[in-house]
């Protein structure tokens, strides 16, 4: 039968072509060439389908009922949760406060996940040992059991040893070897080492430097830093330019500084300001009786632990899966239309005061119905991130320092991975563990990167993560049990030149008519826990002041 014979020939030809092309496909899929088909997992993400409802609020239903509260907090990240806690501490009753969060759980960038092996972070995962002058933060940490006492002799705080990052803390994969610490040392030429030493000497000086206004040149929170022009002018140029001017040209140093900026800001040294680049180092003034200034506090769930503590330290309602989508003025205050995703209905919440603890691009959409004076048109550079949580049976180790908390590969696009099991006390490293791999997508413009990120498939992300990690952990792919991917489309604020000390940022943080208050790290320009906490405290205090002054 000719037709079937032709059919056979066609198939044979296809098969032959397949055989010929197969090696190429193998080559393409990933260098160490082991199959990923055994890996299970899925794609997660700050709920951008829910979030994107905000793009066309007109299609959401009209409110069917009304609720009344004293203070409504929109957004359940660190700033919103801190404001909620502070309002209660300052005397508001739980029923006077309501927090709405569009995601299925609060936490914002400090969200955490958990599987049978371990809890693990989806975003922020540590808090540097704080500046002991940050009394409010210390009070929170004391209440959370993170700070356990004060040393009588030195007066310095004593931290819970189980939460201080255990040694070995950091390692860098450089020249095929894991070295201790993240500052490149292995095989770095003497001239570069001298530059590195000069940079850190300068940082030590800047850490001690006080401006003409008596304030520290660099301090956390940003708001406490000196306004002295000699430091503020550093905000006008990119960090990379400043480094060039100062003769910091060592490729190893520049890699390290770039890594640091990407790690904390999601942006490169060329994208952030010199002030911000220096603040990253010189702003850290942590002191403790049982830790040094470079130490950090961390948990398997990352800052998900702190979020949970914030949540537990107050009792007012938190309504998740609830999208606040429009604000209106009423004779007594503000009305906020909130869409309940599960019930598919809209509730109008009227409140005397509203704290917008949302990123500014969300705030902008929500306030569209208010007068121009209420709005906060502050452009924010916001890089997308991808985070991959890998559940692995084991982690084949290369030569050098053993598995540490923070593990960074020199010269890669990612900022490395953290080991969720690091704070465990088990005697053995054997058995499954979860590692969290972070990659800021800072190479291109944020909008283009975001579009590209949304189009990248789960499989592609896993392939990219493993291709990188295989270089330091050959054979890792076969050990991966699960890979879960989270794409943060809107990541976090980057302190681009002019942002931190520009007039727009200061103006954006100002309350409006004693009714509308703003709390978010976007308003600090630096997205770290301390700033979120500071923003929440500040907004809560402004609300309380407004209530005390204007209402009674």
């Amino acid at each position: 039968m000719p037709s079937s014979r032709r059919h056979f020939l066609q198939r044979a030809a296809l098969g032959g072509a397949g055989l010929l092309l197969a090696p190429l496909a193998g080559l393409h899929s990933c260098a160490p060439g082991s199959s990923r088909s055994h890996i299970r997992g899925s794609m997660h993400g700050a709920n951008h389908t829910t979030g994107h409802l905000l793009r066309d609020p007109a299609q959401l239903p009209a409110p069917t009922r009304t609720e009344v509260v004293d203070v409504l907090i929109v957004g359940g990240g660190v700033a919103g949760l801190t404001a909620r806690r502070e309002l209660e501490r300052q005397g508001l009753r739980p029923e006077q406060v309501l927090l709405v969060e569009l995601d299925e759980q609060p936490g914002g960038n400090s969200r955490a996940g958990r599987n049978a092996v371990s809890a693990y972070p989806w975003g922020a995962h540590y808090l540097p040992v704080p500046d002991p002058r940050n009394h409010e933060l210390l009070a929170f940490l004391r209440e959370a059991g993170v700070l356990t006492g004060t040393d009588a002799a030195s007066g310095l705080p004593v931290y819970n040893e189980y939460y201080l990052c255990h040694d070995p803390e950091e390692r860098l994969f450089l020249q095929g070897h894991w070295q201790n610490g993240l500052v490149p040392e292995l095989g770095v030429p003497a001239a570069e080492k001298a530059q590195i030493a000069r940079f850190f000497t300068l940082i030590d000086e800047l850490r001690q430097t006080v401006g003409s206004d008596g304030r520290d040149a660099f301090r956390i929170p940003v708001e406490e830093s000196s306004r002295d022009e000699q430091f503020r002018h550093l905000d006008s140029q990119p960090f990379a330019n400043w480094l060039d001017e100062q003769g910091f040209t060592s490729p190893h140093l520049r890699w390290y500084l770039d890594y640091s900026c990407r790690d904390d800001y999601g942006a490169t040294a060329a994208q952030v300001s010199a002030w911000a680049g220096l603040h990253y180092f010189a702003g850290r003034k942590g002191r403790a009786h049982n830790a040094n200034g470079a130490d950090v506090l961390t948990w398997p769930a990352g800052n998900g632990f702190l979020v949970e503590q914030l949540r537990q330290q107050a009792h007012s309602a938190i309504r998740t899966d609830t999208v606040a989508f429009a604000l209106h003025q009423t004779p007594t205050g503000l009305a906020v239309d909130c869409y309940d995703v599960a019930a598919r209905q809209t509730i109008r919440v009227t409140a005397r005061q509203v704290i917008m603890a949302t990123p500014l691009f969300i705030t902008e959409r929500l306030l569209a119905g208010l007068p121009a004076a209420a709005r906060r048109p502050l452009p924010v550079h916001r890089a997308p991130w991808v985070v991959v949580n890998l559940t692995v049976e084991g982690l084949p180790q290369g030569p050098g320092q053993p598995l540490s908390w923070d593990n960074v590969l020199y010269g890669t696009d990612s900022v490395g991975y953290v080991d969720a099991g690091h704070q465990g006390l088990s005697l053995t490293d054997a058995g499954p563990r979860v590692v969290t791999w972070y990659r800021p997508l800072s190479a291109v413009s944020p909008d283009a990167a975001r579009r590209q990120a949304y189009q990248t498939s789960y499989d592609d992300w896993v392939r990219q993560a493993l291709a990188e990690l295989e270089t330091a952990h050959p054979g890792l792919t076969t050990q991966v049990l699960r890979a879960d991917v989270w794409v943060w489309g809107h990541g976090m604020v980057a302190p681009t030149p002019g942002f931190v000390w520009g007039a727009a940022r200061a103006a954006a943080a100002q309350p409006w008519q004693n009714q509308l208050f703003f709390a978010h790290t976007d308003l600090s320009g630096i997205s770290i826990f301390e700033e979120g906490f500071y923003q929440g405290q500040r907004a809560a205090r402004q609300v309380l002041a407004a209530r005390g002054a204007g209402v009674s």
Partner: protein
Amino acid sequence: MDKAPVRRVRRTASGPSSAATTLPAAPPDYRPALLLGSVFVIATCGLIYELIAGTLASYLLGDSVMQFSTIIGAYLFSMGIGSWLSRYLGGSLLRWFIQLEILVGLVGGFSAPLLFLLFEHVSSFRLILYGLVGLTGILVGLEIPLLMRILENRFEFKDLVSRVFTFDYIGALLASLVFPLVLVPQLGLIRTSLLCGALNVVVAGVALYRFPETRPFRRTLGGALVASLLALTVAFGYAERLQAYTEGLAFQDQVIYTKTTPYQRLVLTKNQRELRLFLNGNLQFSSADEYRYHEALVHPAMQALPQARRVLVLGGGDGLAVRELLKYPQLQHIDLVDLDAGMTHLFQHNQMLLELNQRALLNPKVRVTNADAYQWVRQDTSRYDCIIVDFPDPGNYSIGKLYSVAFYRALEQRLAPGGWAVVQSTSPYVARRSFWCVAHTLEAAGFTTLPYHAYVPSFGEWGFILAGRNRHWRPDAGPLPPGLRYVTPATIRDMRFFPPDMNEVPTDVNQLNNQALVRYFEEDWGPYAH
């Protein structure tokens, strides 16, 4: 390989049987020679099985003079039984002989691997050992009488006796020289045993294919023969790996037991004088002087606690500290927490080790828990009058956590009021900073400390730290149990004295977030690492 002296009195006269046999007449010339050659091989192999059994027994059970003497006795006696039994063999003697050789090849050949394997699993190892020795002896005892009967019609009696025994004794001489000089050093016990087994099977093969009268049963016996040879060869291939594994160059003595557990690698070695346990290549104890270590670890704390009822032992899965504790009849309960079930199982089941720890871990007062000590201490809610902390040295970050302030704070929660904890704290001579770091870390956790040290020849100067909440401790507070070989009130007083080369030095406190101790330990021991 320094072997035990093998004094050898070979073979009782196994009287030639008078039973007549019917072998076809006029065989070609070479066949008697072939059979005499077989005598030589058989004799060599027979003696080697005996040597293997004796060597293994002294490795595994200790006391080599005793073991060699009883093994030789049992073996020779079994040979006598075999010789006596030979009278009951009739019919085709050649067929019997070939079957016998295959059997000897299998039993003798697999004796060493079998004994090594069973040592770990069988509680009555001695029974298995002597059973196997007996069986091999009986089979070997059958060989010569049988051969003599086969050769009976080919030689005059005086020639027969003279030739057979000449080859027999030459074989014995060869065996006794080759075994310690070539075979054990080159092949190891397991492969030597398998090689001899294969030689016996080859003897069977030669007989089977060189004698025409074997034709009727060639097919059936040939199959068994090939299968046996194959089994021995496969085992030989495996043995090479196993042997290379067990007789690593790291150990100067004969390795008699190895096990890789999920947590560590246990290796027991043995020479005439002592038994040593290595954990991940580090000496854990030597049976020759472990009493010094364990007496020093346990008694200074226990003698101060005449009212003690409950004791916790962390680590110490060898049960040797528990052995010392059980000398205090007032104790009602001992909790032992060791991570490694492989370790505690070994010290609960192995004959030789049970003798060493005096069956301490099987005592009804003792509860053995295999758990991570850190988690266990944090989860447990009871209090102990005395806590013995006998962890491995802080050679890595995981173990370093068990020497941290945080751990000692958790430990303090488990200590009854007025109780004492004692911590093995590495060598104050070699690792002076490490030792004092442990002391300072205990102090940072709120303990009062009493450091002391003892000389343990296998280890050198070794350090311990008593830790309690008060200073009410005396070196002669209560009576010491009778029969101690090292610790007396005077010894305890002496142990408290630190000469200038071991005296206190300032150190950091070991915290989870600085692991100062692991770094000290690495630096202190670095110059001693090979």
